[in-house]
């Protein structure tokens, strides 16, 4: 049974693996140390974080800016084999969200901080099942300009 997906759950530290058994893809949550299966999953939440950081020690005229954007989707078991392509699309999409809020200059200077996978159920939203997605944006400009936004979109 070749393992087609192997990632560490970013929320709990357990392992998420996918393999094909009798022509069917199975996703399992497994304990990282004992290798015992904990339970079967029917999808995985994949999230890409994009960050723009212009900290106070660089910023002139008291104009620091910090932006965090997270784009995530729930990848059901039938799409788990294409998870790398899906995550690549989200990496590009996260720049689009920063562009929408802050313009192309900030988007160009932002960077993808990382990708994480999890199975935690409160994070699975019905509006954000692939190909739909959810994004969260948090920014802190100066004391009175800090805001957060949440929205949904479709690839």
């Amino acid at each position, binding site marked *: 049974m070749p393992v087609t997906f192997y*990632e*560490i759950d*970013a*929320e*709990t*530290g*357990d392992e998420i693996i996918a393999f094909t058994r009798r022509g069917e893809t199975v996703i399992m949550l497994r304990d*990282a*140390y004992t290798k015992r299966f904990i339970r079967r999953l029917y999808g995985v939440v994949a*999230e890409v*974080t994009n960050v*723009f*950081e*212009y900290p106070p020690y*660089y910023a002139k005229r008291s104009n620091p800016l*910090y932006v*965090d954007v*997270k784009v995530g989707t729930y990848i059901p078991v039938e799409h788990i084999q294409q998870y790398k392509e899906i995550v690549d699309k989200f990496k590009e999409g996260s720049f689009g969200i920063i562009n929408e809020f802050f313009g192309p*200059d900030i988007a160009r*200077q932002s*960077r*993808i*901080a*990382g*990708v*994480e*996978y999890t199975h935690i159920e*409160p994070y699975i939203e019905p509006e954000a099942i692939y190909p739909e997605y959810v994004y*969260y944006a*948090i920014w*802190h400009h100066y004391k009175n300009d*800090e805001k*957060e936004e*949440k929205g949904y979109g479709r690839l």
Partner: protein
Amino acid sequence: MDGCERYHILKIDVDKPLSKEELDKFISEGRKVIGLYGYRTLKVRAHRSNHGWHIWVHIEPSVTYETLILLQHLFGDDERRTYYNIMRSRFKYRYKFNILFNYKLPLRKTVTP
């Protein structure tokens, strides 16, 4: 999740290339420190990251976000991460950003506009 949620997993980012023995010592010291405040460790999972280790500590009882960040700091979390976690503590979606990345892309220096 609406801001009064409770958490039971500490996520520790150690950006030092500790050996297995050093990591065991680090974890046991951290467990002692949070034990002093009455928190019991149920399970610890550690995985190698690009620069060191990512550690997940399952504790009991569950705590608020602010206490979680302080406990993470006491356990030995990265200072920079603690700084940003505290900065985000006013936000509603703060729980989405206390993260340990499975796959981290290389850092690119921010260009001064």
